[in-house]
């Protein structure tokens, strides 16, 4: 099945059903389908070709959802980008994927003029911001407002151009080299992964899922895709800024499924829930980083009627492991077994398969193994290697696990130095590069340190020739150059950093 058919089939079955609740807005499947058709018609009328990349640089909202399905209906490949991505990185990604179209909420004319100059592949620019219309950007020629795209008359849905071997999306993820890489997901990959997850969560059209994770994060994105596939209702929030608002929404909308990351669950375990009726919740899911066992126990006490799914995955295969909730009491530290229809095993450095109790790299086989990294054949070859059958590829996760006698897996550590903070991947190399941009910084090192709330907090060590440089100066600079979740929590100045013989910072001796 094609990903846009998740929406189209649910529309055919239950056109009037509420598909999306977003703030004060409630849209039915038929309304979203109609608006996505309009969006697709606009893209096609303005030259979008099959396989062209369509970047969506918006916070969670109705327009992001319509843009996503509209891009697919036009035969395009959607690329959801974090709305807090700064301009320089945005340009890098848009040029990497050769984006032909962008839907953005830019704040000023300079932003759009800058895009036009810096990204030659862009042919279509659509603006959406409730506070400002595109008409206010008269010096950015060619920019059109989202509302104008929706107002155009269209005649049904566009002619289908794609098959399920075509790409549906690129999902950009941080890598150990410091450059974001776009994971290529074809329609069949997404169809399989969503189907497998829906199977073990037992989702039905009666489910109402509240998503406060960004749609640029595959965990957030898949909430939307899965709900539209099983024909449920998605309550889409901009974020988890106000826990009380989320809890009220769960109560008001009778939400049955709530996906979170450890930072969210850490906040919930310290929040007084007594005044909310949360009895509708059927399940909670956690992924992105392991939940501390103490939080698992607290969550089971606070949400006694809800099943808690501990899960593990990486963008390169979407989801990989899940722990059936009935196992949680017996093995709270485990992230479970391979998701339905897939298999995993552990290998040592020489490619030998390992048995119970041994520690090795997790290898993944299944139709959720994505198509590789966009424009990065070497990184693709390292991550996706030949599998069991001719032309098959399996995914080497770069994560070390051990397996118990009964086949359940336990995360041990990463092979690289990627930091997981607030559930997001942070590349130390990427942040170090930013730090070297601060005048006077001669050496920089970034590590993750354990943190009850964040999972890992980002700590930076800086050697600087300018004695006037303060901690605040470093933070101000970072805030201006990286996404919010990458801003360090701690800054420490050193006169020198420990080095290895090969001239690299010896991070294992930093803490």
């Amino acid at each position: 099945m094609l990903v846009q058919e998740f929406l189209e089939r649910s529309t055919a079955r239950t056109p009037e059903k509420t598909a999306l609740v977003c703030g004060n807005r409630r849209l039915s499947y038929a309304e979203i389908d109609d608006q996505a058709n309009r969006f697709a018609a606009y893209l096609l009328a303005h030259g979008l070709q099959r396989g062209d990349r369509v970047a969506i640089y918006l916070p969670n909202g109705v327009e992001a959802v319509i843009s996503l399905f509209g891009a697919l209906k036009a035969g395009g490949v959607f690329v959801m980008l974090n709305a807090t991505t700064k301009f320089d990185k945005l340009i890098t990604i848009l040029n990497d994927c050769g984006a032909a179209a962008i839907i953005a909420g830019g704040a000023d004319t300079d932003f759009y003029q800058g895009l036009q100059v810096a990204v030659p592949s862009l042919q279509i620019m659509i603006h959406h911001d409730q506070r400002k219309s595109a008409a206010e950007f008269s010096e950015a020629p060619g920019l059109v407002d989202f509302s104008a795209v929706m107002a155009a008359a269209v005649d049904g849905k566009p002619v289908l151009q794609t098959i399920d071997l075509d790409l549906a999306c690129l999902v950009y993820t941080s890598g150990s080299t410091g450059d974001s890489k776009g994971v290529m997901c074809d329609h069949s990959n997404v169809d399989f992964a969503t189907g497998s997850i829906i199977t073990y969560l037992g989702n039905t059209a009666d489910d109402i899922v509240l998503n406060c994770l960004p749609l640029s994060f595959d965990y957030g994105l898949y909430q939307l895709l899965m709900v539209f596939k099983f024909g449920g209702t998605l309550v889409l929030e901009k974020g988890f800024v106000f826990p009380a608002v989320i809890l009220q929404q769960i109560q008001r909308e009778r939400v049955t499924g709530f996906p979170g990351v450890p930072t969210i669950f850490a906040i919930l375990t310290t929040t007084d829930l007594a005044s909310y009726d949360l009895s509708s919740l059927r399940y909670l899911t956690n992924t992105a980083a392991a939940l501390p066992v103490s939080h698992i126990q607290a969550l089971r006490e606070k949400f006694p009627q809800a099943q808690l799914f501990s899960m593990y995955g990486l963008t390169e295969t979407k989801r990989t492991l899940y722990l059936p909730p009935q196992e949680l009491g017996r093995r709270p530290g485990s992230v479970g077994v391979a998701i339905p229809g897939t298999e995993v095993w552990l290998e040592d450095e020489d490619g030998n398969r390992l048995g119970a109790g041994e520690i090795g790299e997790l290898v993944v086989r299944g139709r959720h193994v994505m198509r590789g990294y966009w424009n990065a054949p070497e990184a693709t070859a390292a991550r996706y290697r030949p599998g069991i059958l001719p032309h098959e590829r399996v995914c080497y996760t770069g994560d070390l696990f051990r397996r118990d006698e009964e086949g359940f897996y336990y995360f041990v550590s990463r092979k690289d130095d990627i930091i997981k903070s607030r559930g997001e991947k942070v590349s130390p190399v990427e942040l170090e590069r930013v730090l070297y941009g601060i005048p006077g910084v001669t050496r920089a090192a970034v590590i993750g340190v354990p943190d009850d709330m964040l999972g890992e907090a980002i700590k930076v060590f800086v050697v600087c020739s300018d004695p006037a440089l303060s901690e605040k100066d470093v933070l101000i600079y970072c805030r201006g150059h990286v996404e919010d979740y990458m801003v360090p929590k701690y800054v420490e100045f050193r006169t020198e950093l420990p080095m290895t013989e090969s001239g690299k910072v010896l991070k294992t001796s930093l803490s």
Partner: protein
Amino acid sequence: MNHSVEESIRTYIAQNILFRNDGYPYEDSTSFLDNGIVDSINVMELVMFVEETFGIKVKDEEIVPDHFDSVERLSAYVKKKGE
């Protein structure tokens, strides 16, 4: 007195959340949420800040946009709690 509540909230956000030395760059009525000024961790820091600075106790159910989504709303809430 009333002026100082707004001013100390502005200063706190500028220095500790936005990491700016040149003051709070938005209007007092600007929504924190719509403009990405705070995240969930920042909101918890803001709660601790107003509890310590103004000697009030913030209940979990009071941490909502009506009270915490702009300098204007937060200062109105702080003043009401302090009455």
